[in-house]
């Protein structure tokens, strides 16, 4: 009798688990294009084949900023996805209006999960003490350099510059000029014109010089302070001395770097595999050079569930984002893109050591984690970044001097921060 009852209970439980996720279709918006897309598609396809009751449809919705715009529109038209990949800086835009699901209720049932996420990565998804996403594609800004050009210039390709001073010296050696004085090869490529990238590359220089972009409560912009202004002066000198191209936009810079016309520059670790698969020369990857401090920028995206999805879908979506970030999958994602593994168990795994054997260029990004700082976040972060980008552009083009440009930018940003607090 006991046996029969046990059998019945097991059968009922099996039926419940089978039907719990029966025919749950989830729409997942992401920003992974080009070389990252096949790896993402493979993960989604594997999830679908191993989770019979859930079907995830992954849709590319443009870059992070475009996804923000589209998601805002989707909320207005009430046609939102169920899961979205958001840049860690953009989470606040949607948590402010309670549009993302607080994941605390799921995490409380799985207490070991939270502690397995790498601490600085976990902090990027926690807002006012509540987790609104799971870190997924986190990257560090790293120094990419052309080992072939290093060898050609008589430099050791295994020794990347470790300080600003070393970097400037190496960049001078790597800058080649024609008899008319015009540079045919540049040593450095740092913070050239590009709305999405210029300030992203500039920001860690302020930290390395002992400065900050904002105060800790994010109520005041500090770029008018000496560390940031000094950094801007030093950065401007790289263009003035001709070691970094002054009249080149970001895309042109990337092309020139790829063609071996620029020797080194800061780039996201999320692009290491792309670089290894596509560059026509040997790639070296190293930690960003230090100055008064060692620092790099933490960037990338996370997986969030929208708060307006049904309870059934929430559970299925949670299964999906948890699965996408599990130890095995985060390592697969790391090996195939360069985005950092998000789990502590992955960082200490055998598999990561095996990956480093195949792709040693992926290792320095993991070693950079202790020095990686998340970018400051705010509801109006896109507008703030635009203001700061304009300021460094004005200096690069000689429209303003560094102090003027950052004084003006700090005032504008303070106003944005103030108006946001008053909302």
């Amino acid at each position, binding site marked *: 009798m006991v046996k029969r009852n046990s059998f019945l209970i097991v059968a009922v439980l099996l039926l419940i688990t089978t039907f719990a996720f029966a025919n749950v279709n989830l729409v997942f918006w992401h920003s992974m294009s*080009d070389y990252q897309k096949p790896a993402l598609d493979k993960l989604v396809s594997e999830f679908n084949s191993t989770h019979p009751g859930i079907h995830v449809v992954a849709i590319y919705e443009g870059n992070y900023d475009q996804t923000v715009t589209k998601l805002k529109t989707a909320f207005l038209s009430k046609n939102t996805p169920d899961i979205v990949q958001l840049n860690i800086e953009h989470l606040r835009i949607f948590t402010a209006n309670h549009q993302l699901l607080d994941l605390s209720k799921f995490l409380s049932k799985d207490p070991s999960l939270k502690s397995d996420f790498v601490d600085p990565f976990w902090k990027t998804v926690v807002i006012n003490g509540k987790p609104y996403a799971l870190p997924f594609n986190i990257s560090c800004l790293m120094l990419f350099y052309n080992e072939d050009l290093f060898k050609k210039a008589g430099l050791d390709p295994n020794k990347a510059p470790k300080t600003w001073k070393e970097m400037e010296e190496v960049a001078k050696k790597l800058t080649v000029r024609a008899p008319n004085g015009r540079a045919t090869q540049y040593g450095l490529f740092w913070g050239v014109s590009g709305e999405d990238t210029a300030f992203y590359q500039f920001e860690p220089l302020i930290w390395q010089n002992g400065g900050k972009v904002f105060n800790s409560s994010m109520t005041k912009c500090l770029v008018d302070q000496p560390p940031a202004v000094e950094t801007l002066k030093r950065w401007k000198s790289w263009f003035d001395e001709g070691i970094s191209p002054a009249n080149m936009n970001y895309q042109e810079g990337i092309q020139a770097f790829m063609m071996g016309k620029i020797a080194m520059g800061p780039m996201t670790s999320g692009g290491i595999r*792309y670089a290894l698969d596509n560059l026509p020369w040997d790639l070296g990857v190293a930690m960003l050079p230090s100055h008064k401090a060692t620092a790099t920028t933490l960037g990338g995206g996370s997986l969030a569930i929208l708060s307006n999805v049904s309870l059934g879908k929430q559970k299925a979506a949670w299964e999906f984002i948890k699965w996408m970030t599990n130890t*095995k999958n985060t390592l697969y994602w790391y090996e195939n893109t360069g985005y950092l593994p998000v789990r502590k168990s992955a960082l200490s795994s055998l598999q990561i050591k095996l990956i480093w054997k195949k792709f040693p260029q992926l290792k320095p990004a993991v070693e950079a984690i202790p020095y990686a700082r998340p970018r400051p976040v705010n509801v109006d972060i896109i507008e703030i970044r635009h203001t700061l980008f304009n300021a460094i552009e004005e200096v690069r083009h000689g429209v303003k001097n560094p102090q003027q440009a950052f004084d003006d930018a700090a005032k504008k940003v303070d106003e944005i921060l103030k108006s946001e607090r008053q909302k």
Partner: protein
Amino acid sequence: MKKIISSLTLILILSLSVFATNRIVNVQIQGNTFTKKFVILNLMSYKKGMKVNVDELAKAQNILMSSGLFSNVYMNLEATNDDYVLVVSVEEKNHISPIVDLVKGVGIKESDLFGLGVQGEASIRFFNLSPFEIFAGGYSLDLSSQRAFGTPFSFEIALSNLKKMQWITSQSKFQYDLARKTVGAGYVLSGNSGFMANYIHENVSISASEQFAVDAVSLDIYDRPIQMQNKRTYAWWNLHLEKGINGTKYSVFTLDGNLYHRMIGQVYYQARLYGVLNLGNAPFTRKIYFGDTYNLKGYDTKEFDLPFMLLFETRIGVPLTSSFEISKSPELSLYTPELIPQIAFMNYKNISLESFKASIGLGVKINSPFGVFEPEIFFGKELGFYLEMK
């Protein structure tokens, strides 16, 4: 004395405890729905009690990946006291693919027969693609494994009976039937280099009137890259030595050298040097220099009854995506148009312009779920159509 015994005991305990740490006491295989566990263990060269060694484990992972059986191999260590359990998760590849071959006909290839890691091929020749002459008859069966049941030993057993094969030379044109039996064994050395020895017996009949038999032995020595995913340039080669026995006096030496170099993006250059030296009086069936898809294309190489040939082929490929943009990753490559110039040097005893033959080809390599196939068109002495399958 007691002190000595206690010291020795202590040393013994200490040495045993040192011996017991960092060792793999068990291996768990996951994700293999088809391939047998012992095959995977053999491929990994796992020995119980093996010390954790990242280099050795990386090599094991590479061998599993290059076996062609798996699309992904994930390794994890689970601690048990002072030792470890190695957990190997594999994702199996599709192991059945079609065969479309100019000589063998059409058939099916099973790359993991009964989950034993053995490759089996069966094909039926019911038409002759070259002159589009349709007729019935002919079969090929092949059973082989580079690493038999995961061990370093290779074997091959092949049986074919092909009817109405074409042979056209400047002097004559005829058809013949060829029955061939091949038995071979070999050994894979470290990495993916090794050797393979074969015994070949052929019965040939021409128009039912003339019949002869050929017995030969051959030795192949090869070196192929194991894991080339992270390399921009890699090379592989095969040296083939063949000698007639039992009254058939001839020797054939063949060298097949290949070089791959990724130039920029996914655009690549591939060079192949294929040389044959034919000594003695080889029967005509052994004078097929390269096999149908490796010939100097745009020519009928059966016309060249020469003891020597050196072929240099280059392939410049531009991988494209499904929307015909230049691909940024190997996974996105769907079509690869290739430009294929070929130059052959035919007669080393009489160097003249006549000794050189050239052709140029255009091909499109297409990645399909059943493998890679490539239709090609070549312009040489004549226009030639070819189909390569990989």
